[in-house]
């Protein structure tokens, strides 16, 4: 499980933080309500998950709440990939 969460967290850091940003981001850090990811740029994260895990996340499921923390994202991911730990 941690392997996948780490993968998502690494992507979030790479995709959304600047190199000089020393902000600590954990599995529980609020990404959207915390201002790290906005609703406009959230699409990159969705595309990343879809490509990486070969799934299609309908827009109705890709809510700011579902994408707000790495833990939430993993929970959403498991809905589409029940085979994950």
């Amino acid at each position, binding site marked *: 499980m941690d392997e996948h969460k780490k993968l998502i967290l690494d992507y979030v850091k790479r*995709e*959304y933080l*600047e190199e000089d940003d020393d902000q600590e981001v954990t599995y529980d850090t609020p990404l959207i309500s*915390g*201002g790290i990811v*906005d609703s*406009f*740029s959230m*699409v*990159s994260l969705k*595309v990343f998950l879809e490509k990486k895990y070969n799934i299609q996340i309908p827009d109705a499921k890709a809510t700011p709440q579902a994408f707000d923390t790495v833990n939430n994202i993993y929970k959403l991911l498991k809905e589409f990939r029940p085979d994950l730990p």
Partner: protein
Amino acid sequence: MSYIAGKRVFSEMIQKIKEDGLYKQERLICSPQGPEIIVRFPENAPEKKVINMCANNYLGLSSHPEIVHAAHNALDDRGYGMSSVRFICGTQDVHRQLELKIAEFLGMEDACVFSSCLDANAALFEVLLTEEDAIIADRLVHASIIDGIRLSKAQNFNFKHSNMEHLEEKLQETQNHRLRLIVVDGVFSMDGDMAPLDKICELAEKYDAMVAVDDSHATGFIGKTGRGTHEYFGVMDKVDIITTTFGKALGGANGGCVAGKKEIADLMKQRGRPYLFSNAVPPPVAVASIRVLDILSQTTERRDKLERLTAYWRKGLTDAGFDLKEGNTPIVPVMLYNAKLAQQFSKELYDEGVYAVGFFFPVVPMGQARIRTQISAAHEKEHLDFALDAFKKVGERLGVLGLKKKEILAKFGE
């Protein structure tokens, strides 16, 4: 009709906005737009004369006698309104003249004039792109571009603000799309920095993508002859599309346009919903905007003065110990980071006779609150000296002079 449930829901929404400290109150200006304005704030307060440091009146043309005169004449010659959308019976000769004039000014083949640049951006993406295409936008583009992108069926990609490596990654990621359009603001309205158009155009060429620039905060004064950011970066022949407004430097009334290749302007008129379903700009605005472009094509005096004043203002604030966003445009953000501090600062500035508004989340990213100041060619050095004195007084009173981000946040909180 029953408004009972609606009233409860809407009142709760307003209450929430107030609780979050995000409620916006209008300040009533009781004079023409200019460097000195008469304001009533709050609404029932007595009128007060203040120095205006937050208008988009970059070239000081909003109330310029020649522009007002041109609009007056047009009112007599061509009337007040069109009572029609452009394609039915809302296009006068002056609307078409304005399109040709702005296209020429921007170095483009043709243009389509809309009621606003927001409308231009609402049309642009939906008309040109389909689900086969990709839009690659800077993450700090103006809200109207974000809305425009959402209206189109094209796939939305975006890159970290002005980060060329990230843009290149996205260009590589989207190689299989039919068309790709890179979208940026020429000058970003909140930070006042410019998109590196020279590098963007280089990447666009390398990956066979088109480039669109919203130059609303640049047209008329950025670049040696004020053509915009594409002139500044020496890529006038490489930018494919420019959207811009007549509502800022170019007289400040309203109206905007999409300028670009002939096919693009033509398609805007065939398929652009804001063009097809919204009224034409009023004739006096079209004629006055033409006059503005004539003046700007004859002399660079106003943009030269603006450049000098901007340098003077930046230096004054920096020497006083304020933390500024770096840049060289007339948008000069004074960074305060803490939202409440920014609001308090703005309030105290007003008490000192200076009108400059605080911006905070969600208008700018969290922890990036600021006072955004904007210079105008209508300012005189004396206005800026007065404003600078007020900034120093308030800065000293609130204890922010000489402090950088970390120290301000340590003192005032996140």
